[in-house]
């Protein structure tokens, strides 16, 4: 029976087009589906990606029900080993701070870790707080209450944002920590990027965090964030990719790398890559997945940039190809 099944899969594998299934993170979903569309047009192979959330993606690949899983947060190498998985990053995204202060309009504010941390801890309550004024000497900040908005649903965006706060603010690390959802000390919750944005837009004095892509598409004001070199950088394709290229990607550590608070004068500090998980014990299925991602690394950058995702730097792509070979899943 098993042999017959194997023969059948081998047969379909050679004679018919590939059908690749994946499931997981919602953040890269628009890009993966665009890639899948063009990949099918060029090669005839089908990719079926279900955006069921990172937690679901990890679970599905752990149970081997899909060819690849996708997660917004990297798994630690020991967790990967436990489930016999490998992982690599595909694209980079970032989290931006957006706000609604009618008096200053779309002026880009300067903010740093301490300011955002104190706002989200509920310690800075007014826009004209001396600390915010000191960061923005040229902006006339009004005497207005700050309305803190965060995500109400579990999400990779929250993971990246709170991870950064944990790194730059000891008090946050001690009191809250980081995760896909955390116990917020203050503020109101909105569902999804659109929930947070709608909330910020509606409340005068609102501040919230959303994905860079979403903010860009909706033309929201974005704050410049002070990075670890002390420079205020605005979120852009260039500054986000800078964070990824300064990061020390290590294939022996399965690319376990969190892109928040990276060195580099131009690096935007609240960035994060999104990851693909493959199973080592099903090389045939994993090879199908790497066929797709090899195509995506080689020809997919322009589609990524169209959608405001930041592609991986070339040197990291090379590392990923080597990593595949080492684990015997290269296409």
């Amino acid at each position: 029976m098993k042999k017959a099944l194997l023969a059948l899969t081998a047969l379909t594998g050679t004679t018919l087009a590939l059908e690749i299934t994946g499931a997981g993170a919602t953040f890269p979903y628009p890009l993966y589906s665009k890639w899948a569309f063009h990949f099918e047009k060029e090669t005839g192979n089908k990719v079926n990606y279900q955006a069921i959330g990172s937690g679901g993606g990890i679970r599905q690949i752990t149970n081997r029900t899909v060819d690849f899983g996708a997660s917004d947060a990297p798994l630690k190498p020991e967790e990967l080993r436990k489930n016999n998985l490998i992982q690599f990053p595909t694209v980079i995204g970032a989290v931006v701070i957006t706000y609604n202060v009618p008096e200053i309009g779309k002026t880009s504010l300067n903010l740093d870790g301490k300011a955002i941390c104190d706002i989200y801890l509920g310690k800075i309550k007014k826009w004209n707080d001396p600390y915010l004024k000191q960061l923005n000497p040229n902006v006339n900040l009004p005497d207005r209450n700050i309305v803190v908005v965060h995500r109400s649903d579990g999400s990779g965006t929250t993971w990246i944002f709170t991870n950064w706060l944990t790194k730059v603010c000891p008090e946050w690390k001690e009191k809250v920590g980081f995760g896909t959802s955390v116990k917020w000390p203050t503020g109101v919750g909105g569902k999804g990027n659109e929930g947070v944005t709608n909330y910020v837009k509606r409340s005068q004095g609102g501040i919230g965090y959303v994905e860079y892509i979403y903010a860009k598409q909706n033309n929201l004001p974005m704050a410049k964030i002070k990075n670890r070199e002390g420079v205020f950088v605005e979120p852009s394709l260039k500054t986000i990719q800078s964070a990824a290229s300064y990061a020390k990607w290590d294939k022996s550590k399965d690319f376990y790398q969190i892109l928040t608070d990276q060195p580099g004068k131009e690096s935007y500090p609240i960035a994060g890559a999104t990851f693909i998980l493959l199973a080592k014990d099903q090389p045939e299925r994993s090879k199908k997945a790497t066929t797709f991602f090899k195509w995506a690394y080689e020809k997919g950058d322009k589609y990524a940039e169209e959608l405001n995702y930041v592609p991986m730097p070339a040197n990291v792509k090379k590392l990923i190809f080597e990593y595949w070979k080492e684990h015997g899943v290269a296409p």
Partner: protein
Amino acid sequence: MEIVSSTQEKLSTVKTKGVFFEVLVKFALGFWALFIGLLFPLLIALILFYESRLAIEKFGFIHFLTNANWDPVNEDFGALTMIVGTIISTFLAVSIATPISIGIAIFITELAPKWLKPIVSGAIELLAAIPSIIYGMWGFFVITPIMANKVEPWLQATFGNLPLVGALFSGVPTGVDVLTTSLVLSIMIIPFMASVVRDSFNMVPSIMKESAYGLGATQWEVIRQVVIPYTASGIAGGLILSTGRALGETMAVTFLAGNNPQIPKSLFDSFTTITVALANQFTEADTDIYLSSLYYLSMLLFLVSFVMLSIAKFMVLRLEKRWKV
């Protein structure tokens, strides 16, 4: 009799087939009734119990029920905030919806002119057909700003300074809170309640109403002393149906509750319910204990629904006894 016996002889073969078929249908229907009614819920309960065993082991029953902390980072989970949120929003929604639904039913069956009846009934039934996500979006984009900018500041200015009641209207009016959620929930359950109540009002025999009128009763007296007592169980049935709906409603509440795991101290506080916590956190629950706690929550919802519906059913029985002399 003769005809019957002759046909019986003629169709003896068909008859045995018919009996066989009858038994088969009886068996199949019985099995499905048993399966859907008894085994299926039991199976769900068992699966929920199995999936939540990790959380049950770690937190226990009483502790999980009384712990108001929900902290995924430190993996400390308690269900108190969600259970309280579920009960408060359901209770408020049903209390708002009940008098309105009964009013609608009275209007349709007793007061409205004939040509208006089907229009109003149809409109109410249409409300029931709107998917709950639409209510959620509508609530979030339309109702929430109105509540935050107009209604809630007004409520606060009017009632905020009163003793005792004032505390209910304290806090910053954000629109994403207990009041808005209960209001939208009540609009969602009104059609269910109103149609059940209307149907039972329609079943009051006209002879009873007519004899009451004949004895000189006014319209109000007929409604109060004939129609409502006669249909007490129907009203209660609508109540139960809508309580069940309000308990399990997810999508609309997800948009409106704010999903803050805290016990609301005022009507303007954001809160969360069991279903909202599940919908918001299930997809990104990344640790085993986190997922298991969510399963534990859904098991509690199962129990809470069961208990609340039982209480409602019990109330119906008592109501029927008292009103149906």
